[in-house]
């Protein structure tokens, strides 16, 4: 009789241990998934930021005096002149966001495009959900014209295409989960070439 009780007790305890193990496995898997998603959005962010910085820092380079460096200054698009490949010819570079991509769990993801000299646009579908541009004069105020723009504030947000488990609250339903997010804002990203006049 005592053996039977031992077996029953063992089975019950083993059941609990297995349940705990499964729960632990799920939590760890969710955490690992969240960590991977976070790593992915961070790497995507760095990739995009490096491209943006590479281009924006050269804004106005090689552009003759009297020719404006900035061509189009929108809230989510920018177009400017620069001898971007340093070959002695002034190029026109555009950065802009396309429409949202359908079919992904995250409905806010867009493609961030870069186009040179009106050629084929190259898109970076790396989870960009926000690409914002703000233009300021030398005093940090609104510029009266394109020529008065000295400072460009760039905002970029990248999100994972699917929601990931919160690393603290582990028992959320999928609806309650959030996307992995990386946010970058450069408040002083402006080439010296656009403020060298005078």
């Amino acid at each position, binding site marked *: 009789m005592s053996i039977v009780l031992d077996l029953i007790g063992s089975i019950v305890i083993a059941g609990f241990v297995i349940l705990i*193990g499964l729960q*632990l496995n799920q939590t760890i898997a969710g955490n690992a998934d969240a960590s991977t998603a976070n*790593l992915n959005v*961070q790497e995507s962010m760095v990739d995009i930021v490096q491209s943006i910085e590479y281009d924006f820092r050269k804004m106005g380079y090689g552009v*003759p005096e009297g020719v404006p460096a900035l061509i189009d200054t929108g809230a989510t698009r920018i177009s400017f002149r620069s001898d971007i490949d340093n070959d002695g010819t002034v190029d026109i570079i555009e950065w802009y966001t396309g429409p949202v991509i359908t079919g992904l769990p995250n409905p806010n993801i867009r493609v961030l495009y870069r186009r040179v000299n009106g050629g084929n646009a190259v898109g970076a579908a790396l989870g960009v959900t926000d690409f914002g541009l703000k233009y300021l004069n030398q005093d940090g105020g609104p510029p009266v014209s394109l020529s008065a723009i000295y400072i460009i504030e760039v905002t970029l947000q990248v999100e994972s295409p699917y929601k990931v488990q919160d690393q603290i609250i582990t028992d959320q339903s999928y609806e309650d989960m959030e996307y992995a997010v990386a946010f970058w804002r450069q408040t002083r990203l402006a080439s010296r070439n656009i403020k060298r*006049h*005078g």
Partner: protein
Amino acid sequence: MGKAAVVYVIGLSLIIGIGLANINESSVGSMDTYSTYFGRTMAHNIALAAANLGTHRILFNTGSSSAFNGTFNGGTYRVSFADTGTAGNFTKFMTAEALYNAGGDEIRDTVQAVFRRVTFARYAWFTEAEVNGYVRPNGKNGPYFGHNDWKITGDSVWGYAHTNYKFNLAGRPYFHNKVTATNAATLMDFKGEKDPIYNEGYEWGVTIQRDTANIGILRSFANQGSPFAPYMANNDVGLEFFADGTARLEVPCGTGALVDTVVPMSQLTSSGVIGVYGGDLHIKGTYSGQYTVAAFTGTGATGLKGNVWIDGDVLANDSPRGNPLSKDMLGIVAERMGYITKDPTRTLSSVLYIDAAIYAHNGEFTAEDFWILPKSGRVSVFGSLVQKSAGSLGVFTMAGLQNGMYYSIRHDPRFLNLGPPKYPFSTKYRLVAWWEG
């Protein structure tokens, strides 16, 4: 039972171990991403700091060309220079290289910049001080000498504006291009407004010296190879340009007692510079080609000479007003004053056109006796105006023009990078291009 427990423990340990290893790998990857970006940012900032140091050396010491290196913020940098160009177009290249060790990864970054000494013709308006400095041909001051020059609502400057003192601005004068000055502008309320419009921004603390050596350079190039060179000293000279590339040379101006002939401009100079030493130069007409005409102050009895007199329209044959690719270009340089000659036939509707870059080294560009002239219309300058003091062409009250002429100055964009032959240039370098890797 004991064996089963061991299996459970080992199984759980494996699950936990693998899970933690995954998380740890992601964390390390995340840190690696951050570290790489941090390293690149550090290398870039070190290169920028080095480039700023190099820029400072060039801007505050024109002769600085020695490479230097150092350490900053955990990295190293090296800045080197290369000089090219000739008088009037000196160019200096700067390369700043940085090296930063980010956890074993050596990250490099480079910033390059180009500096150039530029022609004064790039300014639409340049003065040493915004005060009237009218001096008569006999050396006596005009009645408004020393009075502040004010730019007020309705005034506009199209092209770069600079003064080595301070601007006096009332209301909302308009500056289309960047404004620079040694000191901040003095602002005055005008009709309830005190807010100048700087379309391209402003920068105070900028001083650009006008080197007297420029005058010496012009003199050395003046009248080179010309058979008329001997007549160009200690005489007043008249030059009337013709569209076919010739000019009437009259020495002395008004009588032609020594020379009165029409010759190709090429016979007056091979260097592009025509100069009168110890005399005044009177000009008018339509020119073809690229020339700088100048009048230099003499010594003794000719110490008050060196004035250029505008006797009538001075026009480019191929007008740059309509053709920005026109090859016709004129510099007018007066070591002393530039006067618009009195002309009693002018009326309120008259317009005097001048297509030229004008430079008055010790004086200003003005209209002869402007304060007693009847209302004489407008002067339209398409070029550049550089003066020691701020010349006036008329007397204005709140009711408008009372005497003299209205002023209209438009900058010739061709002068942004290239001036007329041997035209005065700055001794200070200016940043013209900046490349960040």
